[in-house]
């Protein structure tokens, strides 16, 4: 089975904590015709790391590079869980039991019935995909983010 299809490309952008920086980033994506699917901002006093999952990752990457942003592409995993009380706790227990190390996570707003989607950056993505699938977790593939 091809596990690589579960690797969701994510774009990370370095931004200074200054007025208008966040907007500039989204403006570039808009002009490139890229739709943001999920997003998170990790911030410190001085700078932030903006992370996106988009429908056209290559295009987003190039547009941001062309506009002199500092950009990195890396992979995350999307896991669908039951949108009900304890849904996230159950998943996190599985992850903890599997001894997988989460770097960071954020949520994805979607239109799936009764499901919530979490995006995870794991220390070791291959190990995480394999173990999570074995444990019966519902992983979304790359195409899912292009379709919607």
């Amino acid at each position, binding site marked *: 089975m091809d596990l690589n299809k579960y690797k969701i490309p994510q774009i990370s952008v370095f931004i200074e904590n200054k007025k208008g920086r966040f907007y500039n980033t989204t403006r570039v994506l808009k002009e490139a015709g890229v739709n943001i699917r999920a997003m998170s901002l990790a911030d410190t006093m001085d700078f932030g790391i903006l992370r996106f999952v988009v429908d056209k990752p290559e295009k987003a990457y190039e547009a941001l590079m062309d506009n*002199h942003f*500092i950009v990195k592409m890396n992979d995350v995993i999307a896991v669908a869980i039951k949108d009900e009380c304890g849904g996230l706790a159950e998943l996190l227990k599985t992850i903890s039991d599997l001894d997988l190390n989460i770097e*960071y996570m954020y949520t994805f707003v979607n239109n799936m019935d009764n499901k919530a989607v979490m995006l995870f950056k794991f220390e070791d993505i291959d190990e995480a995909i394999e173990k999570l699938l074995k444990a019966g977790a519902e992983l979304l593939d790359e195409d899912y983010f292009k379709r919607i």
Partner: protein
Amino acid sequence: MFWEKDRETMDRKELENLQVELLRENIEYAYNNVPFYRKRFDEYGITKESIRSIEDIRKLPFTTKNDFRDNYPFGLLARPMKEIVRIHSSSGTTGKPTVVAYTKKDLKTWADLVARIAKAAGVTDEDVVQIAFGYGLFTGGFGLHYGLENIGAAIIPASSGNTKRQIMLMEDYGATVLVCTPSYALYIAEVAEKLGKDPKKDLKLRIGMFGAEPWSEQMRKKIEESLDIKAYDNYGLSEIIGPGVAGECEMQNGMHISEDHFIAEVINPETEEPVKPGEYGELVITTLTKEALPVFRYRTRDITKLDYTPCSCGRTSVRMSKPIGRTDDMLIIRGVNVFPSQIEEVLFNIEGVSPHYQIVVDRKGALDTVTVLVEANANLFFDEMKKQKQLLDKINDELKTTLGIDVDVKLVEPNSIERSEGKAKRIIDKRKF
């Protein structure tokens, strides 16, 4: 290799006695021959009897560049023009030029001092030396010229400029030693490569004697690699005599100061007190043997440190480190002296740091703060906050170790630090005193 071995390897106790004796004579000599010093010494109650030990030099007042300007052009000379045989001066871009003059004996002394640093760098009478320093009012060209002639080397007095011709001369006449500024040496290597030559093969260079501007160890490595030579640093300034005050031996570990001709001190430029041994501070030099222009405790404004530990080359003289900056660009942060060059050195040693940085000094309440802005780039950006923090902590730690104070490193977006043509604006001091 030595030029005047007895002098260069003199027992330190003996050397100190000689310095005290020469200093005493020099005070009397200046008092009798230079009205400026007579007045100064009278004001401070200085006579030769004031000097009993080498530490007593601290009783003497300092001499500064302003004293040269105030006495422009010949007010500081101790000999009449009849005995003067050479005049050099600075370009005078920052005011009146600084004028210096030499008697016949001074020129002999100078040629011996330069011969010492040339020998220390391994130059012999077999060498063919290309001098690419300007010949003229600047002391570099003539200073090196007569010193190298003194040891019997064959000199190509190419003077400065016309790099293509420099390369042709070097290649055709088989130059083995190059004398110029370190940045010009790198430029020569670049141009030679552009001309389709391999400077390592097509040129016979083996030694470089570089000076007249500050340069780093990284730059030395780069020059040595691109020209396949050993690159030696030397130090001098026209107010003292010109090049030849100090030069590196084959250990390349500090420049030996010819202490039988000069007394070197390092002081805190603010308090004017001597720094602790081995600490950085402003170099202060007193001449002991100059006839035309004796100078006492000259404030060089160069920041260096002195190393008195014995050198394995056999020379007993003190070694000065490469100057790390000028007092003019020194920052005083919470009472600690900080030089932009120290910050630059730390940054450049960290993999991936861009050459664009800026140092912002501010004051919060009573406390000075230093922020070092570094432009981020793909090498310095990690998707994970943990790694990002680790990198910033690493830069912070290394700056703290080097500077002795806490600074705050901030990554900023590319191209957000203002670019300027010519000298980059590295420091923004927002403090109001």
